[in-house]
């Protein structure tokens, strides 16, 4: 039961953290609740489809289909998150002002809604399909531990939801004037972390050199498999034994998005005086 709880916790936490960061980061966008729920539903549906087709996915591209499929998902998510942050760099102040003054949702950001939908759906899809495969395996192995496993899985899911909920409540305590700056940093780290995971998969598929495998080993200090390690992995992309290529990708993507945000926000300033 506990091993099921741990596996489901580990797989689901990342998706939960992404959801709670996206929910916070899109505060003030009207009807975002519907788009969030839509993203989760689409993701769950997709998980079942992907888990079902895993054999076919695995067998394409000389057995590297799984890696390439996940790389594609990650790259789309990184692009969406980058777009979100760059959009916020020019609209964040406006949004914060309106939340402060009216405490009402703003009817703006039509494209932001598709970002919410797609990012959340992809996060749930990527983590969900592995959980589905795990549960399927248990259900078919004939063990009489099925009930225990489902109970454990529910516990793991609940624990993940609680941590993500706490993160969200914590974020809401940040003053409105600095709120979007804070969520912007979280989204930036999330995008960099996803890019580094894509790099790991490309190294795994032998399409990129590893540039040091691993570059360092901090597993004695903080094992990635512990609860804290799992949370940090989900939030900032912490890995105890990363390949050099992952670290390089992380830094390059972080600097690229941050530079674009600064550039856009510098250009947006004159508009505020209107």
């Amino acid at each position: 039961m506990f091993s099921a709880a741990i596996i489901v916790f580990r797989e689901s936490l990342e998706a939960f953290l992404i959801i709670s960061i996206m929910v916070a980061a899109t505060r003030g966008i009207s009807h975002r609740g519907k788009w969030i729920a839509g993203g989760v539903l689409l993701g769950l549906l997709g998980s079942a489809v992907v888990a079902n087709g895993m054999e076919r996915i695995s067998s394409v591209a000389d057995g590297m289909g799984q890696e390439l499929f996940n790389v594609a998902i990650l790259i789309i998510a990184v692009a969406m998150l980058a777009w979100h942050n760059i959009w916020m760099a020019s609209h964040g102040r406006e949004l914060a002002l309106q939340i402060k003054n009216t405490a009402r949702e703003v009817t703006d950001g039509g494209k932001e809604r598709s970002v919410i939908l797609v990012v959340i759906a992809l996060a749930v899809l990527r983590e969900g399909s592995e959980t589905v495969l795990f549960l399927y395996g248990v259900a078919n192995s004939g063990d009489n531990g099925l009930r225990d496993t489902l109970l454990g899985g529910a516990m793991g899911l609940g624990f993940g939801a609680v941590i993500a909920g706490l993160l969200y409540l914590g974020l809401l305590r940040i003053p409105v004037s600095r709120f979007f700056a804070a969520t912007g940093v979280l989204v930036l780290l999330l995008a960099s972390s996803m890019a580094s995971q894509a790099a790991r998969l490309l190294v795994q598929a032998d399409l990129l050199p590893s540039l040091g495998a691993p570059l360092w080993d901090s597993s004695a200090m903080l094992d990635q498999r512990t609860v804290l390690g799992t949370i940090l992995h989900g939030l900032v992309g912490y890995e105890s034994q990363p390949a050099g290529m992952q670290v390089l990708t992380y830094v390059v993507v972080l600097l690229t998005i941050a530079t674009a945000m600064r550039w856009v926000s510098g250009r947006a300033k004159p508009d505020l005086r209107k």
Partner: protein
Amino acid sequence: MKSLLAVAVLSLAATHAVAAADEFTLTIKDHAFSPRELKLPAGKKIKLLVVNQDATPAEFESKPLGREKVIPGKSTGIVSLGPLKAGRYEFVEEYHETEAAAQGSIVVE
């Protein structure tokens, strides 16, 4: 001239042989790895075939190697590795990682 050409062709063939990955096999049966300890050569590209003989899916995972791959039931997953430095690298079948038989290590020498 002819011998020079022959040497060139031979050395080309030799470098190609070195560049091609050596194949090794790891089998999963009843959620247990065999062998539990796999010896691999250092400094070489390796193609590790993970054969899942069970009907249920398995996930080969190694944090030290940075590898994670789902292997559907009754199928073989290819995990490319290396060139590796000498040392010991642990791996698990993630869906049964708490069971000793689902844990193993690669010893590179």
